[in-house]
């Protein structure tokens, strides 16, 4: 009898302490609806997986970590509302989001609320040029991407290049970045214009570009448009090579464009984990596949995962959730050699240090091949 009472008391005590413990809250702002909904769904999957693993290892500072997800709707106005909701929920940090213009709408809200924000797909240069104290990103910037793209274009020996963007913060930024650099290298820009995203017919654009007679088309927009452009260029029997920015790649691209049309398409992109040798990346991939049945299709969801790991590591190492201390630490001392996408550390602006971009090309089997 005594024994049973003792056991019961211990159980009560244990559950009581468990309830007394509060959690550390980390937010995720992701495009769960709207045109980037597929990116957002995967970001959520990645973070839920990493969060479950973190909690299985005991969480942070002896507390469980709670993931609070909100939807930015792939849209700046929705994002501002989502950001305001997240600030009221006591999150230490927020991971996200994908589109640069969407992130931009939330930056000041998080910064004023002293919440660390780690964007995962927003590569527009100006996001980190505003001197915001609590803003970071795990993806590189467009000027970094621009450099790699310029190198890739120079290597193709194209003399006349057409540049096509879609007027979004990101795509226009990258196009504007690359144009003067190419001109400096003596490459002629024969076409520079923007298409309207989310339509299905780009033959008018292609016909006009064809008239300008480029040796190469550099498209800085997103993958659904890239798929249509490649497919329709092939239908028009126009055999110009296309080079894309990092948003043109998604595993769906082969399906969208068709295998034949995608052959020879090249792009610059932070590598997917399957091109990373690290043990971390491999075990993460295996876990992801086990839980969801397929490998992550976008590099940005993995970069969101890295954002989560960075925040978790910084909290664990500084043993605090104080935003000033965390931001300071992340900017000056933080270094993670085993991040999913390679080594991560940040400069004083909150930008990721080091070159992350690689240059890839599709072969005739629809597989992507890393180019040297």
């Amino acid at each position, binding site marked *: 009898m005594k024994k049973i009472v003792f056991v019961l008391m211990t159980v009560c005590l244990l559950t009581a302490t468990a309830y007394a413990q509060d959690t550390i809250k980390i937010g995720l702002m992701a495009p769960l609806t709207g045109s980037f909904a597929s990116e957002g769904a995967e970001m959520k999957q990645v973070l839920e997986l990493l969060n479950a693993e973190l909690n299985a290892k005991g969480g942070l500072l002896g507390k469980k970590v709670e993931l609070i997800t909100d939807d930015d709707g792939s849209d700046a106005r929705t994002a501002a509302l989502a950001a305001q909701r997240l600030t009221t929920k006591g999150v230490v940090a927020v991971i996200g989001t994908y589109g640069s213009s969407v992130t931009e709408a939330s930056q000041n809200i998080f910064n004023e609320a002293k919440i660390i924000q780690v964007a995962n797909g927003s590569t527009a240069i100006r996001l980190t040029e505003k001197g915001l104290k609590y803003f970071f990103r795990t993806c590189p910037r467009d000027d970094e991407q621009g450099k790699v793209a310029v190198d890739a274009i120079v290597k193709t020996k194209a003399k006349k290049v057409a540049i096509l963007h879609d007027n979004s913060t990101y795509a226009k930024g990258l196009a504007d970045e690359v144009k003067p650099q190419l001109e400096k290298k003596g490459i002629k820009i024969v076409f520079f214009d*923007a298409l309207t995203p989310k339509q299905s017919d780009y033959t008018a654009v292609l016909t006009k570009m064809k008239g300008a007679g480029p040796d190469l088309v550099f498209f800085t927009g997103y993958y*659904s448009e890239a798929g249509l452009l490649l497919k329709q260029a092939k239908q028009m029997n126009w055999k110009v090579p296309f080079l894309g920015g990092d948003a043109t790649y998604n595993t769906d691209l082969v399906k969208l464009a068709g295998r034949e049309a995608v052959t020879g398409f090249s792009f610059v992109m932070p590598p997917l984990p399957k091109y990373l040798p690290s043990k971390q990346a491999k075990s993460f991939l295996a876990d992801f596949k086990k839980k969801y049945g397929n490998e992550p299709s976008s590099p940005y969801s993995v970069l969101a995962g890295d954002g989560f790991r960075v925040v978790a590591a910084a909290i664990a190492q500084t043993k605090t959730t104080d935003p000033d201390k965390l931001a300071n630490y992340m900017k000056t001392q933080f270094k993670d050699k085993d991040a999913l996408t390679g080594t991560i550390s940040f400069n004083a602006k909150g930008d990721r240090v080091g070159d992350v971009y690689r240059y890839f090309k599709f072969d005739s089997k629809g597989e992507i091949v890393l180019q040297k």
Partner: protein
Amino acid sequence: MEEFFQQLTNGLAVGSIYALIALGYTMVYGVLKLINFAHGDLFTIGAYLGMTLLASFALHETIGPFIGLVVLALMVMGLVAILGAIVERTAYRPLRESPRLSAVVSALGASIFLQNAVMLIYGARFQVYPEDLIPETAIDLFGLYVPLVRILVLAASLVLMAALYTFIQKTRIGTAIRAAAIDQDAARLMGIDVTRVILLVFLIGPALGGAAGLMVGLQYGQINFTMGWTYGMKAFTAAILGGIGNIPGAMLGGLLLGVIEAMGSAYISIAWKDAIAFFVLILILIVRPTGLLGERVAEKV
């Protein structure tokens, strides 16, 4: 000059899709004076249903590509028509006697409901039609390179439009629809069952919208749950351009809008394509406030 004609075919191909969708807007507006915002989403559903039916029956393999596609189109049109009638029954008919604003709000609600239903059923990712349904050959028309699928789509939409025009102008039921559009009360006094006419309009319009969705899927291969919004917006513009409520007007407006877009991007700027299209719309509305073929309606004072 070659580029001009190439752009003309590009514009006509897009415009024929706009025209098919615009017919749904204009017919409903003609009879009910209501803008059926859910129409764009019925178009989306047509595209998704086409994909599902293609994958599950593979008719093009069993009974030949041509008959297979015709049967597929009929199935899609039938299903979307039924859905259109359900939308009418549940979202619009209960509000028939209410102020017009309530019906507009209900239409927006139906649109949001259908769009999200498609997202929940099929997921947010882009979906892709099976490849190689229609041989990817291009036909050489006096030096112009036009893919076969474009010609088929343009021809199919012209046939549908011609069929609708004949139906509305030459048959008794068509006359009843026109009568109900002019004056519902007078039509009722003449023994026309207006409720059935409205139901019929909600069968024909969505059927054409569904066919347009299938054509977009076949032609471009990639479909997405938000596509109805973009196409719906353009088709609605086309309906106004041609004169909303007027059936030949919707056809003309759709084709014209497609051509204006293509020419605008060819000779002015691609980025300004939509702005140019709307600029032309404003110009036309200034000169002809009722649209190109819209009749003058004297306001009752």
